[in-house]
């Protein structure tokens, strides 16, 4: 019985390793190609080792594209969205998980219902509204409308429900008000779920293309994704290694965060279901 289990496990390892080649090949190719010369990329597309090894891709990238500006813009937008969401989502989640107020269940039911509304319904009217407000070509068009998000509230609420009520009651008997309970008890105990939400929100904003495409007109405001997409259509094929370098540079930050905090990423998806 145990031996059979071990054999099955070894078979699973073998299949998983084969699958891994397909999964990771594009990343390996991306990194390797960014160090290749154009002639090698054109003449020998299935080669994987850069020979000769060259940094011309990265030099060309930083010369032709203001990568640091793109990074700065993206960090401003993604950072603001993340901080606003951490604060407002956790407040709402605390109220829904631990406070009593008339209409709470009805409100939560309604919030769940809004998850089913397709975003495309709001796309044109919201753009029209923000255009008329003069928000187009300003960061606030990307930051303010997404300052609070129900999906994050939902994940936080699920986590906070597991915090024992006794802790909160004890604090209340000692005279602590709800805001104090939120900041002194709930927030410190919710760090894991806050980390998950921070990572997901930041990554979502970092990888977003549609929002910046809609609202950011001036190249000086562009984010990494929009900047790279616009840049990619201007690169002549004899400098294609520059594009590969750009892909590596804008993927790397998220990849590094992922490598260090992978369990928080995976946690966000490990317990979802629809009952």
């Amino acid at each position: 019985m145990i031996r059979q289990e071990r054999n099955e496990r070894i078979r699973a390892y073998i299949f998983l390793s084969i699958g891994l080649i397909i999964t990771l090949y594009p990343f390996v190719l991306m990194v390797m190609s960014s160090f290749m010369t154009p002639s090698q990329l054109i003449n020998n597309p299935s080669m994987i080792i850069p020979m000769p090894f060259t940094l011309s891709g990265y030099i060309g990238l930083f010369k032709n594209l203001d990568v640091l500006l793109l990074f700065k813009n993206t960090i401003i937008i993604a950072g603001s969205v993340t901080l606003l969401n951490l604060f407002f989502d956790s407040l709402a989640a605390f109220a829904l998980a631990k406070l009593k107020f008339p209409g709470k269940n009805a409100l939560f039911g309604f919030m769940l219902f809004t998850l089913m509304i397709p975003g495309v319904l709001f796309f044109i009217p919201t753009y029209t509204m923000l255009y008329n407000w003069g928000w187009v070509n300003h960061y606030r068009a990307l930051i303010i409308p997404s300052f609070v998000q129900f999906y994050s509230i939902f994940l936080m609420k699920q986590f906070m429900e597991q915090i024992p009520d006794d802790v909160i009651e004890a604090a209340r008997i000692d005279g602590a008000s709800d805001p104090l309970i939120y900041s002194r008890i709930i927030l410190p105990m919710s760090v894991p779920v806050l980390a998950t939400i921070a990572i997901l929100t930041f990554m979502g904003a970092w990888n977003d293309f549609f929002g910046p495409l809609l609202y950011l007109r001036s190249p000086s405001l562009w984010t990494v994704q929009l900047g790279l997409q616009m840049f990619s259509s201007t690169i002549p094929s004899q400098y294609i290694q520059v594009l590969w370098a750009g892909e590596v540079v804008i993927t790397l930050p998220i990849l590094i965060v992922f490598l260090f905090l992978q369990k928080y990423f995976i946690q966000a998806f490990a317990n979802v279901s629809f009952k």
Partner: protein
Amino acid sequence: MRTMRKFLKTLNKSKWGYIFVAPWIVGFAVFSVYPLWLGIKMTFMNYNLVAPQSMKFTGFQNWINGLMDITFWKSLLNILYNQAIFIVLTFFIALLVAYLLFKISSGNKFWNAFFRSAYFVPTITSVVVVMLVLGNISAPYGPLQTILVKWHILSQPIVWNLTPILIMPVIAIITSWMSFGMQAIILLGGLGTIPPEYTEAARIDGAKERTIFWRITFPLLRPQIIFIMVMNAIGGLQMFTQVYVNFGTAGGPDQAGMTPVLYIYDQGLTKFQMGYASTLGFILSGIIIIATVITLRVLQER
């Protein structure tokens, strides 16, 4: 008087609850309810964003035009063609990977975490980068086709993004590569919740591994499967970036790469026909909601 006092007392006791959920309610009112109202009004108007003075009430004209717009329905067929391939392909790959990851979860901790994370990496990559990298890999003289030609599987390289019939399948495969890791993690979470006694009992009775999986394990994954399929119905039909990166707003040769959201973007953001674009948004949303309800009905049935 007494009821009034009682009411004020409850209100005072629950004031923080209301204050804490107020930001969501305000956000929803300003950035969802109000735009929705604006959108409904716009569907009955000819509204050019850059020439608002020419705004005119047109009754149901936008709705009639939208329901008879051949390009819009073609874009819808395109995305259904894409999703038919994407949903089936991604789900079965994800199921296989989840099953394999579950098999190794009782083994070495390091390799367990390693494989889980490695399969998740495509999910954290942006659509723009994925389209550029996989677009390059699948290009006529890219590494994939070079090998297929060398092995005589292909007689000559194919320019898929100029071949209408191939555009949506290739984009479906690329999107599938991006998404299967996340679906696998969701399904793996489901596998972890199934009590081992269920499968052990069947194993002792001499049931085959395959029978156990399809008869016992698979039906118990229903909550995760419903979640994935509802996500597909809502998200998949709204595809934009994949086709925009490849074809711009034109939608590619023969408009084979046109999706509904790309078409709405084109009507609104390049032609500034906000009333018409908003109407198409409502029609598409209606279709998505119907698709979601059908998905739920089919999957929740016993």
